[in-house]
């Protein structure tokens, strides 16, 4: 390592801390400018993420103090998980050992997301869980229990609890929220991302296909059986317009289904939150993220063509099971058949997920406690 390049690297770090956006290979200044970071040089992942954050900050109204705090956090953040070690800068490291030096501009979005997910997890932990609105239970409410579509069930449970209609009670009607099985699977994975995290969507789907099983919440027949509900107290609802009546209300709010990018980012953040707070605290924090995560415009994940045949067969099996069991159906069980063959499907893209992550790091409005959040 030439001493010049080492000094240049320190100067470049200081430049980035000041909000600079010059790529490393275009950096020519050698002298230290501003306050250099003490300790070892951050890895190329942290430095490139900071540069990209700065590019976004340029277009924002963030105060200089805020920018500096964020810059220091980015430089100090580890990259979560078993990926690459912190990568040295090309032209600086003279060691014959350790990972090969890289040009930070070539570090992939996947690697940058490992750092960004740590920062977002820390933001979420610092924010704390949103309070859960509750109201005194109305004595005349319809007693119900929700199973099926986890995204919808989670949103509705919260809404109903806030309006004095908590789930459960004596002899509840078991309302199974049905949907075309491909959507149900996508929503089951999506909700899982906003709870404990899970494996990536294609791997998750393959896991169930190779087992030829459905995950518990997407298996409507098993979900109903699990509660030992008697037939008159069960409703399989495939027609969303007729759902409010089954729950004893006139209207229900629209529940937002997170897009592929939001779910993928949440999946990564959940893994880090799991190592930051006790297990019992993670669900409320992740639910808070689900309410507050900004939109990215991406559609929810969809079942790829290769898995469609299995999904169709599973849907047919579920339909047979429910028909044989004779449960009352609100709508038509034919609606369980996969609906999205050939339709546009959301696919998480690392670059877009990174873009969303950077947006959330730079624009803290999603963390404002008085912000109206979507349910």
């Amino acid at each position, binding site marked *: 390592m030439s001493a010049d390049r080492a000094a240049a690297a320190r100067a470049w770090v200081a430049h980035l801390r000041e909000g600079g956006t010059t790529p490393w290979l275009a950096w020519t200044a050698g002298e230290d400018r501003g306050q250099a970071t003490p300790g070892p040089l951050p890895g190329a992942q942290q430095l490139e993420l900071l540069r990209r954050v700065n590019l976004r900050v340029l277009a924002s109204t963030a105060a200089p103090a805020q920018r500096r705090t964020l810059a220091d956090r980015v430089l100090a953040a580890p990259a979560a998980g078993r990926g690459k070690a912190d990568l040295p800068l090309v032209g600086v490291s003279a060691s014959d050992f350790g990972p090969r030096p890289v040009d930070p501009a070539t570090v992939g979005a996947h690697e940058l997301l490992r750092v960004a997910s740590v920062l977002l997890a820390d933001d979420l932990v610092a924010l704390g869980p949103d309070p859960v609105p509750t109201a005194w239970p109305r004595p005349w409410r319809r007693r119900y229990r929700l199973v099926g579509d986890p995204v919808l069930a989670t949103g509705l449970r919260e809404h109903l609890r806030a309006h004095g209609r*908590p789930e459960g009670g004596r002899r509840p009607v078991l309302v199974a929220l049905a949907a075309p099985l491909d959507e149900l699977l996508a929503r089951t994975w999506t909700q899982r991302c906003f709870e404990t995290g899970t494996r990536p969507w294609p791997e998750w789907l393959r896991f169930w296909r190779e087992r030829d099983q459905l995950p518990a919440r997407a298996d409507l027949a098993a979900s109903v059986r699990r509660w030992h509900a008697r037939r008159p107290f069960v409703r399989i609802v495939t027609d969303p317009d007729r759902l409010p009546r089954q729950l004893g209300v006139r209207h229900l709010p629209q529940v937002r289904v997170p897009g592929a990018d939001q779910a993928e980012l949440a999946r990564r953040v959940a893994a880090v939150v799991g190592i930051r707070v006790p297990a019992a605290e993670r669900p409320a924090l992740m639910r808070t993220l689900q309410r507050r995560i900004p939109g990215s415009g991406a559609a929810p994940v969809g079942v790829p063509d290769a898995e469609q045949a299995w999904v169709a067969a599973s849907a047919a099996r579920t339909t047979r099971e429910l028909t044989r069991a004779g449960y009352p159906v609100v709508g038509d069980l034919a609606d369980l058949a996969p609906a999205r063959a050939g339709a546009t499907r959301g696919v998480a893209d690392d670059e877009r997920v990174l873009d969303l992550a950077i947006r959330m790091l730079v624009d803290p409005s999603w963390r404002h406690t008085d912000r109206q959040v979507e349910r």
Partner: protein
Amino acid sequence: MSRQVLLHVGCPKTGTSYLQDVLFRNQPVLREHGVLYPADRFDAHFLAALDLMTLPWGGLETEAVGAWDRLAAEVRAWDGTAIISHEIFARATPGQVARALASLGDAEVHLVLSVRDLVRQIPAEWQENVKHRSHVTYAAFLRTIRDPARESKIGSWFWAVQEIPDILDRWAASLPPERVHLVTVPPSGSDRGELWRRFSRTFGLDDLPLDLTAERENPSLGVPETSLLRTINQRVTSVLAPPDYRPLVREVLAHQTLSRGVASARLGLAPADHAWAQELSRSWVAVLAERGYDVAGSLDDLLGPEPGAFADPDTATADELLPPALDAISALLVEAARLRAVEERLHGELREAHEERDRARLTTSHRLRRRVVTTLEDSAAGRGTLAAYRRLRGRPRPAA
């Protein structure tokens, strides 16, 4: 008494499980002699490492929340010698190393790195990968680690925990060489107690009355056994979640069953790979010798054995795989029978609990109390009375 921390950061596959087991089981004796090994469970320092390095690990990380800070606090509060030991600390980045050393306070830190020759480490690391769900072939594994770009997860992890000079660059950069201790694993065929004697000398445990019985080791597998396990992984890793894989495959199959095949050929390196590994080791030995660290054993131990007969696990025949496969089926059936017995016992206990509950519900007093509660629940005043009563009795409100 001066405060001293012996920080053992690696490497994997160097007898660390045995060392940690001895330290864990002998905590009271160690304390009596002024040595702290702070661990409330065997894997306490593993969890601390996961926490320090923000390393999710198949769900285990949820048990690691705050583990490093707790461990460091115990070490700081101890007025004597404290030992921290886990091999995955070897992977820490410079920033994490700086945080770890800073959190140990003003103690005199000694870094301990146990090391073994690459000729034995490479096959051992491939086996370890296979025991952690991987189905990469041996040939692909070797290609991956020989790729200078280290782009893959396997390659980057392997070198992060096995490249001795780099680990020392990260961990020992701020320490004088006399406070850096290398413990070399003796060559194959050495006296079984020699490695312990080297550890014991380095950790200052020579005169302590420790129970050295081996209760927990990380046994190696033979060539056909590893090959079989890799083949099993190909079938099961996509359908078996990590919490199920660990007890059923890693423990029952690998550790308790397949590792018993002591007569099987041991895995080594093909001649070309052997020459490359030894050449690399020689360059490391030269660098380490210049640095002047304290060495328990000899740096020449890092050169490894001379080439021997090589059995290729990627070409193991069906005939070779059949005996361990039958052992595996047998072990899994026995395990299934054990789990059936557990299930049956739990069903029995549940049945008894249900019967007991039903008997209690038949009593007149229960029926009377039930009626009172249902009546009260029908009015706002009644619900208020019930809530007040439950608060007085210290009972939670029933879930809605």
